[in-house]
């Protein structure tokens, strides 16, 4: 009844004896493994065997791991509605670790915000307005880049989108859409973002919590997730050098509500 418990000690001993007979020691085995790992890394970097040799997911930052528990899978489409910062947060870690990124059809993207989140601007290609050639341009990006961020108002028909998804699955790139995308593998709708740090005329925007509803194409209930996108500790990348120092904040706070009710005409700023 309990035979599955029996560990076949005899077999393990036989294996070790074989290894000993072949003269291969544990140290040599470890070295062999290391060499194989190094070769695999080089192969991945050179691009030889991109499909079989690559990892199935791209790296994802910790503070948004709740939204995509399975990670940024290659060949999948993630549609995020309502927050550009969330899109940047999802792709930031991948860009920092060497992935090439293209942003198509997002003319209003805040580049400084992208840099603060940790994206590597030297590996970021911006195509603000492909106009009529959008399907060809996005197709070319899916071919050559690791992550393609697509804006909400591109001239892509549903047939074009289906073709792009198939292409992405074949090439192993990720499509992140900043607007709705029918048939997306993961659909994230941001319902509210709550900023903290402002008062009645003092302070500055400091930390933000975002509430999002995540639903999967493969079914299952929609989840409600709260993510801290900016703020001390979690999220936001490195504290930017533009953050106010202690005295500056104090100075701003003491300005206080500087409004007066006056009726006569004054020179404006």
């Amino acid at each position, binding site marked *: 009844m309990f035979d599955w418990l029996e560990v076949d000690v005899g077999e393990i001993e036989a294996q070790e004896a074989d290894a000993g007979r072949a003269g291969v020691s544990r140290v040599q085995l470890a070295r062999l493994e290391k060499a194989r790992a190094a070769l695999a890394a*080089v192969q991945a*970097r*050179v*691009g030889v065997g991109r499909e079989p040799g690559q990892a199935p997911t791209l790296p994802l930052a910790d503070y948004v791991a709740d939204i995509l528990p399975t990670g940024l899978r290659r060949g999948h489409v993630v549609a995020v509605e*309502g*927050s*550009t*910062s969330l899109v*940047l947060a999802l792709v930031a870690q991948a860009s920092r670790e*060497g992935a*090439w990124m293209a942003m198509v059809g997002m*003319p*209003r*993207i*805040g*580049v*400084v*915000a*992208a840099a*603060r989140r940790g994206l590597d*601007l030297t*590996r*970021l*290609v*911006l*195509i*603000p307005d*492909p106009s009529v*050639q959008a399907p*060809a*341009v996005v197709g*070319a990006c899916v071919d*050559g*880049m690791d992550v393609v961020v697509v804006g909400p108002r591109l001239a892509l028909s549903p047939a074009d989108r289906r073709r792009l998804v198939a292409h992405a699955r074949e090439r192993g790139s990720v499509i992140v859409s900043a607007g709705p995308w029918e048939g997306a593998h993961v659909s994230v709708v941001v319902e509210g*973002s709550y*900023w903290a*740090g*402002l*008062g009645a*005329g*003092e*302070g*500055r*925007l400091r930390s*933000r919590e975002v509430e999002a509803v995540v639903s999967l194409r493969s079914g299952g209930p929609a989840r409600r997730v709260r993510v801290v996108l*900016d703020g001390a500790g979690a999220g936001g990348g490195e*504290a*930017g050098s*533009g*953050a106010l120092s202690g005295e*500056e904040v104090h100075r*701003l706070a003491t300005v206080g509500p*500087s*409004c*007066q*009710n*006056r009726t006569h005409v*004054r020179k*404006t*700023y």
Partner: protein
Amino acid sequence: MSVPVVATTRRAVLWVPDWPVVAAMTQAGLSAERPAAVLHGRGVVAVSAAARAAGVRRGQRRRLAQQACPDIAILPYDQARDARSFEAVAVAAEQVVSGVEISRPGLLMIPAEGAARFHGSEEALAGALVSAVADDAGCESSVGMADGFLAAILAARTSSLIPPGESADYLATMPVTVLAHAAMERAQRAQVEDLVSVLIRLGIDTLAALTHLPVGDVLARFGAVGVWAQRLARGEDVTAPVLRRSEDDIAVEYAFDEPVHRSEHLIPVVRLLAEQLDQALLAAGMRCGKVAITARTQRGDTLERVWRTDVGVRSGAFATHMADRVRWQVEGWLNGTAAGPERSALVWLGVLACDVVPLGSEHSYLWGGISGADSRAQRTVDRIQGLIGPEGVLAVREQGGRSPRERVLASPWGQELTEQRRLAHPWPGRIPDPPPATVLVAPAQAQVLDAGGAPVVIDRRLGLSAPPTWVRLEADRADQQALAAHRHPASGHVGRVTGTVWDRPRPVEAWAGPWPIAQRWWSEQSSRHAYLQVTLRDGPAVLLAFTGGCWMLDGVYD
């Protein structure tokens, strides 16, 4: 200054006295009799003969020089100009001898043995050099010949030929101050002058006295400078001559028979130029990192643009890649879309390879340099630029600035990015981080209203007229409700829908500011903005700017 031991060679030195002044006077177009001096920092660096006769000396301040000689012309110091113009003298000298060394602008070092044998005698060589330089470069020079570096330089100053073997005796009688002539750079010269002043104070007046000192003591007391000076004083050489090698730039050019107006006529020419450049690079065994495309227009303007080409990205397709780049640039110039003077026909086109590196130096291909992903991405960018033009694909960087829009530097992928404002500077008073994730391309109109519905106004002392209570942004064009509300007579006008369509007013939850940014008040690009950060109850947080009496939406923190 380390002092390796080198065999003494017989050298001829061609010396053009006061070369910086000569070069500066030629550039300024002054005649040779005019007294002139070159000023660098606070001291005079070089003095012309007429000024020296009037009493101006090196190292004097400007005022002293002008006092000694009232109508002296003070010229600016430009090392590059000196070096450039001295090339002409070097080229003239190279017509007489095979290789020259430019020690510094004004001093040419020539290995003399072979050339003297060729010309018959040393006097003949000296005469040939002086006349060649006078004819071709148009300046007076003097030639001296001796064994050893210092002796040759001193011989050139007196235009004498020291017979072989007598250089040591010639040097022995010289005072120590002549050591300064052997220093080639300004820093070195200052060091040597310090050493000379110490030697004089110690009582060592002549080079003979210096050579009699033990080497170890000189090294201990004066350091490497002392050893260098002692070697030179003995008549030895400290560096072997390094002959100048003229390197031609790798460039191709084409002059059109008739001025070209249409870009279609350029396509075969551009392809030809790209192929020629590729062949030239291959023949020299080089690869280039940047390409400078220059064109001359009919009107006489010169247009230039530098493009990056990625080293190690492609091999066979270099010619087509180059042809594409040149064609886009020229089309841009012809259509007047590229930044530059107004459109006009082109008469000459040239492509120059910059940043050349030898082939085979792309060693980091496998082990962590340019990788397969990089080359794949570069090919993709090329393809997309072919589809929508080079201006459609942008590379972005951060640069200095105060508002989120100013802090972005965008330019077509492949072009050199030159930042207008340095990122490293502190930029006090800028909008604090975190920056907005959406920055509008051009600021849109907005309305900020107080509790009663009147617009909020910021006065010159940064006081708000009332706390902001409502914010109205521009409505989406597809928003039918806003359009209907706009058409309704209650919105304040009758008739056709004109003006901006406003969305419903959104209540303000919290706000902060104003952050004033007033820039460049003295110029035409002056701007005065006061920024406000506002969180809306049923909307994102926004960055509003008050300028010129009205409110604009600058960015959205979405």
